[in-house]
């Protein structure tokens, strides 16, 4: 087994990172700087790291910007609070069902196949979402899914500004297990675009790449189900904040 492409006296990535972060002791820094003046390869690596650093910070100059980059509209930073509000609403919904019986559940869509439900948090009020739900910029949405078999899932959004992917953050749809009312571990903060908004939950039996679907939705304003897939659509109406 072999390790190293670096010569013994070359500077490791860790030390280059410590140098960039200003963490080296003065004597170490002097030794490293001296080496960098004589070793073309280490100097080149340092320059490469610096270019990559600048590119990264240009794309994500702050943690909050990076959060948007990672999850687009995902607000994982606020997840503990989001979980609390959503769990409260879910428990309340369960309590209503237990007390009143299943025939008196809050009105929802007629569903046979795999589908998603959602909860809306507006200010401190949380309610279960319904078709055509009125929402406002800044409201938070949380989703649950139900499927009778493992499937691959992605959530896409179409509003006045275009099409975007709510879930997942990665390029491939996520395989979800069989289950009912399973919470997806993210919340969405609605942006300021107003008017009708549609959220497409795409359930497929095989793995799929999300981006072509998002592009199709952006270009055609519709999303027919690909072969082997089923789509559940949530409609919202985003109104100005009151």
């Amino acid at each position, binding site marked *: *087994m*072999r*390790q*190293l*492409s*670096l010569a013994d006296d070359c500077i*490791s*990535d*860790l*030390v280059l*990172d*410590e140098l*960039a*972060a*200003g*963490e080296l002791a003065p004597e170490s820094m002097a030794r490293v700087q001296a080496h960098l003046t004589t070793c073309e390869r280490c100097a080149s*690596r340092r320059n*490469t*790291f610096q270019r*990559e*650093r600048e590119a*990264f*910070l240009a794309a*994500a*100059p*702050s*943690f909050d910007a*990076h*959060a948007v*980059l*990672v*999850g687009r509209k995902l607000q*994982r*930073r606020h997840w503990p609070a989001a979980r609390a509000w959503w769990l409260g609403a879910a428990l309340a919904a369960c309590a209503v069902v237990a007390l009143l019986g299943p025939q008196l559940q809050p009105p929802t869509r007629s569903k046979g196949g795999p589908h998603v439900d959602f909860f809306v948090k507006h200010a401190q009020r949380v309610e279960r979402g319904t078709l055509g739900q009125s929402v406002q910029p800044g409201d938070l949405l949380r989703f649950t899914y139900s499927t009778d078999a493992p499937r691959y899932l992605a959530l896409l959004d179409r509003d006045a500004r275009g099409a975007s992917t709510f879930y997942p*953050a*990665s*390029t*491939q749809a996520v*395989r979800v297990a069989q289950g009912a009312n399973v919470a997806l571990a993210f919340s969405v903060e609605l942006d300021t675009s107003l008017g009708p908004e549609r959220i497409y939950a795409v359930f497929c039996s095989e*793995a799929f790449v999300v981006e072509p679907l998002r592009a199709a939705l952006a270009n055609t304003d519709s999303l027919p189900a690909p072969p082997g897939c089923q789509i559940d659509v949530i409609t919202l109406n985003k109104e100005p904040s009151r």
Partner: protein
Amino acid sequence: MTLSREHFDELYRRHAPGAFRRARRLLGSDADAHEVVHDVFLSLWERPGQFAANSSMSTFLYAAVTHACLNRIRNHNTRTRLSLQHFKQAPTLSVAPIAQPDQTSVLRSALEQLPHELAQVAVYYYFDELTHRDIASILGCSHRHVGALLKRIEHWVNAEEREPCVS
């Protein structure tokens, strides 16, 4: 350790780019690497006490990113299991990440199978090309212990090679 928002933002600017570079190299995916970086910094914000001030933030983040990446590699549903015998045949790694996807994917697959402690050391040694001293500073152990762990990796790999390949 207490962490003001200003201090946290400064740590992000200093260290997130390097954390992303390593995660990207380990995982072979920009999207996964971004998620790892986000998770690591979110964890640091929520639990700043996990950073022991007797090490540098860089060494702390090397360990945190490595741990997160190894978990992700091991939990990846679509991973392809490759025989560990390829581990020995892996060519010397270049500094450039993603440049040799075949090499890094072979190593990545090997990391799924190594015991966690050894996998960490393998990351530092084969991916990061760190010295024994660097690895010792990250793990908080002696150089001698690092050498022993590397010996265990060799023994483990050799033992695996004697076993028939099971898919």
